[in-house]
């Protein structure tokens, strides 16, 4: 029976060996133990122990400070290892808020890969360092953000007016000037949150007038429009400049035309309110170059949506690389978490409880956010493979004859059955916002208004039978039989019929629309004779007789 004895001896020895190994690994080989052993505080070596920041209200127990010791409460002085550097000064003290609420990652973990979330079973990896402002989106909602062009113009104005000479904003400016000494003005990085003195300009002028020498002497009067630019710039200073810039890019790329963010936007694409929580374990990285990070996935997805997500209808974003990076940052910031009331920030309350808009209410911003995706940044229209081309709104032939009522009605009700949605709805635009959009569309064409039309909306009294024959030979090729639509717009559309006046239809047929397939039928072309005014009115009479046109 020696065999059994040997078995017992050998297996026991092996078990003992493994247990010793496990004990050594547990007690000596943990990375955080090594780091803390190297750490030196003001009173000598620090105690080697697991450390954590607990915030029950946020549901956080972050053990990140077991390695990042000097970022923990009261341990800023600990140094000795490369990792032991204190957190830079921030409003939200990591000693209270913990780490993962802003940075993501797995707070309960005590090993690097697990803690940073780069493991298969953790859905929320850390945000990349250059995109850490996306973490603000966990609680905050930047409100009233203007479009990219407006924001950039405001930033340029602030710079042009030399405000940086005395003020520091987002870590820039307020530097020592060679002759007059140090920073004079307050730091304005949080002016959008903390508010700023509305009378600043009068006070600045007063001081400039009374000062004999020094920096005040350099203050010069500012024009009205520049004052508005400065106000806009200050309003958007929320201590998260990259996030605000990213959001303004998002608002200019027309994304809200198809996607909803916190309940406002179109229905064609998936809602994006929580898009920042997309789990890297649940998406395919096959077509994504670079490491398996959500950042790379998002960016590639903006460049070529259909190759990253099979079956995606989204058109590629015609954007520069830095803009794609901004869109990525903004999408990653869409990670709103449920919060207890004491941690609800004011902006979030204003957005959620009082319905304040996350975008600025000027026409350009609204147009950029809701319309530019299809109609183009400058209203030039857009042609996408596989889709009926989206009409150009800035077309001078169109704006020259289209009354505001037509534009308003179209934005409000859309084109039922076609891609254009009606925006006057609970999750769409408000009436005053639609007015702003219409005004902006008008301004895209240089602000020309159509000549006032004394005639009623319906005045044509042509021969519908004749009109029908003409329509079938000249129009049905593009507009489809019975005006059902084809390559050209559907003419039997109820909203179009209701909002377009007879004058508008007659003028469109006679003059055509330059830059599109729609020719002017007043003039003869090599393939057909010109239509007389009566012929054109007959066509309009026929159009009015179409189902949908009867009212």
């Amino acid at each position, binding site marked *: *029976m020696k065999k*059994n004895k040997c078995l017992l001896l050998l*297996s026991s020895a092996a078990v003992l060996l493994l247990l010793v190994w*496990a004990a050594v690994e547990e007690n000596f080989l943990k990375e955080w133990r090594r780091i803390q052993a190297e750490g030196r505080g003001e009173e000598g070596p620090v105690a080697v122990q697991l450390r954590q920041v607990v915030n029950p209200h946020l549901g956080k127990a972050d*053990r990140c400070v077991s390695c990042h010791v000097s970022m923990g409460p009261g341990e800023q002085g600990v140094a000795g290892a490369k990792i032991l550097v204190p957190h830079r000064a921030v409003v939200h003290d990591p000693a209270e808020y913990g780490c993962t609420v802003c940075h993501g990652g797995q707070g309960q*973990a005590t090993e690097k890969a697990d803690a940073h979330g780069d493991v298969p*079973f953790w859905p929320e990896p850390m945000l990349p360092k250059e995109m850490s402002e996306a973490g603000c989106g966990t609680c905050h909602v930047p409100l009233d953000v203007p479009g990219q062009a407006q924001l950039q113009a405001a930033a340029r104005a602030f710079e042009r007016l030399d405000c940086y000479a005395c003020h520091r904003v987002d870590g820039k400016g307020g530097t020592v000037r060679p002759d007059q000494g140090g920073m004079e003005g307050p730091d304005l990085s949080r002016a959008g949150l903390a508010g700023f003195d509305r009378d600043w300009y009068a006070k600045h002028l007063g001081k400039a007038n009374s000062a004999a020498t020094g920096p005040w002497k350099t203050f010069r009067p500012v024009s009205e429009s520049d004052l508005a630019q400065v106000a806009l710039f200050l309003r958007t200073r929320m201590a998260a400049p990259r996030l605000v810039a990213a959001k303004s890019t998002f608002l200019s790329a027309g994304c809200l035309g198809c996607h909803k963010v916190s309940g406002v936007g179109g229905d064609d694409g998936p809602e994006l309110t929580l898009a920042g929580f997309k789990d890297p374990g*649940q998406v*395919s990285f096959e077509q994504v170059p670079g490491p398996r990070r959500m950042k790379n996935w998002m960016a590639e997805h903006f460049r070529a949506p259909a190759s990253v997500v099979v079956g995606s209808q989204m058109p590629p974003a015609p954007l520069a690389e830095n803009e794609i990076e901004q869109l990525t940052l903004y999408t990653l910031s869409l990670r709103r978490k449920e919060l207890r009331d004491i941690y609800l920030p004011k902006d979030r309350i204003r957005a959620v409880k009082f319905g304040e808009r996350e975008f600025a209410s000027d026409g350009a911003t609204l147009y950029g956010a809701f319309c530019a995706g299809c109609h183009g940044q400058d209203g030039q229209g857009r042609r996408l493979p596989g889709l009926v081309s989206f009409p150009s709104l800035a077309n001078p032939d169109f704006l020259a004859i289209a009354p505001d009522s037509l534009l308003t009605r179209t934005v409000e009700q859309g084109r039922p059955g076609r891609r254009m949605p009606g925006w006057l709805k609970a999750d769409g635009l408000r009436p005053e916002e639609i007015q702003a959009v219409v005004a902006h569309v008008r301004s895209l064409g240089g602000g020309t208004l159509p000549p006032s039309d004394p005639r009623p909306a319906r005045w044509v009294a042509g021969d519908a039978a004749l009109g029908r024959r003409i329509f079938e030979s000249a129009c049905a090729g593009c507009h489809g039989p019975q005006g059902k639509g084809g390559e050209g717009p559907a003419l039997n559309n109820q909203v179009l019929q209701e909002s377009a006046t007879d004058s508008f239809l007659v003028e469109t047929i006679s003059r055509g629309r330059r830059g599109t397939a729609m020719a002017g039928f007043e003039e003869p072309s090599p393939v057909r004779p010109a239509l007389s005014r009566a012929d054109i009115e007959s066509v309009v009479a026929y159009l009015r007789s179409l189902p949908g046109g009867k009212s």
Partner: protein
Amino acid sequence: MTPVASGPEKKDALQEFKNSLKAAPRHVLETAFRTGPPTTDRTRSTFVFGNVFLHLHAVRTHLWSLRWSATMGLGIMSVSAFLIALVTGVMLMFYYKPFPDAAYLSMKDIHFVVPTGRLIRNLHRWSANVMVIAVILHMARTFYTAAYRRPREYNWLIGIGLLVVTLGLSFTGYLLPWDQLAYWAITIGANIAQSPREVTDALNLTEHFDPGGLQRLLLLGSDQVGEEALIRFYLLHVMILPLAIAALMAVHFWRIRKDGGLVRPADADEQLARQRRDETYPVFTEAPVKTYHLAAIVRGRTANVGRGPENTVPSMPHLFYAELGVLMVTLLVCLALSLLSDAPLKELANPNVPENPAKAPWYFLGLQEMVSFSAFIGGIGVPVIVLLGLALIPYLDRETEGTGKWFGGPGGWPLVRLSLAFGLAAPILLEAFAIRFGWLREWFPHIPQLIVTAINPATILTAVYALYSLWSIRRYQSVRAGALALFTCFLCGFVVLTVIGTYFRGPNWEFYWSPADWPKH
């Protein structure tokens, strides 16, 4: 009453106290073992039957039982794995909080903060898996050596009960981490419990008579997996099922001894006589004083009755070396696996985000594979048939030829070999056909569900196995041959279906050669 001056040999009480104190450790040891160190056969015997934990063993063990090939230690391995799971499980209970979300956070704490918590959790998980495997292999050993035969029929039934409770223990433990893996695996498990609905639905009976829904409700305590389900599974896992398995195990061990020890062939003694002995101890070191007493006289033909204890050795230490050896090997295997591979813990359970594919624990994936064709057949029909069939084996096979021999009985190894080939080929071909060409539902979308319930790969496989087994009975004119064929086929079917369910099924239970081909997003 003046003991101090009672006699001339007046002792110093202080000295007495010192002597007693010095001798105390020796006395503790002596009183613990009552009959002195186990150095003679007699004291070795008393060592066994005088000990509450050891007295389930016979004092002497037949040499045949100690051969590694006789049992491969699988029974002891099952118990060892259970003991490891028991000890580590109790340790985990110190930190585990059975309430949704808190449960998950406590798992994270056990994993990352509790000293040795990760190792203990890994040990618990691996020992549970080792136990499931060891129990199945132990059953196979018992079957192939025909150990279930008279007088051990009833112990085979107890063994079936132990198999069921083992699976129950493992399954109930699966929900406790409260992560996505657990949540959706239990959702699948609960839906399998609801599968009788497939039949009651087809018969329009569900409104009046809904055993499936009742089963699910009993299991979950609610209409979905939530806090009620968690506390139920917890109670089953840490209390009810461990008590049940302990009781069954006690009966199982007791019956081994009462049924005459482990099975061995009728000619075991002759076979042993032909081999060289390598015992450490001679068979008898003194005349047996207390080799038998009434408790040792048992029914049945045992080697010891009326024949004297030839070819037996004292259980202490021979058997105990073997048992402890297997215990330590089991511990070694679990420990090594625990250090190599962490038990999985996915993200927090989220009822709004279904896992796709949601898979049951691996030992139920064979069932899930069958459920994908018919919930009733896979979830209730086939398992009931299999358990009934297993339970009936000892009562149908009343033969004696080949007892105690591996693959003993008519047919023997050649039949088992053929059955292996057949048992593997049949489900692979059936699955290949169903995967390539679809099944009735794909061909005739509107046929009644009852037809699909009656005719699907699972029922066809069961029927094919049954026919093959009947053919084996006729060919060898032996029920044992039929049992050998059927049991081998059952094992093969279990393995094939489990492997397909584990490795080749992806989102929506579609077939994929590898998880790398799964569609994402």
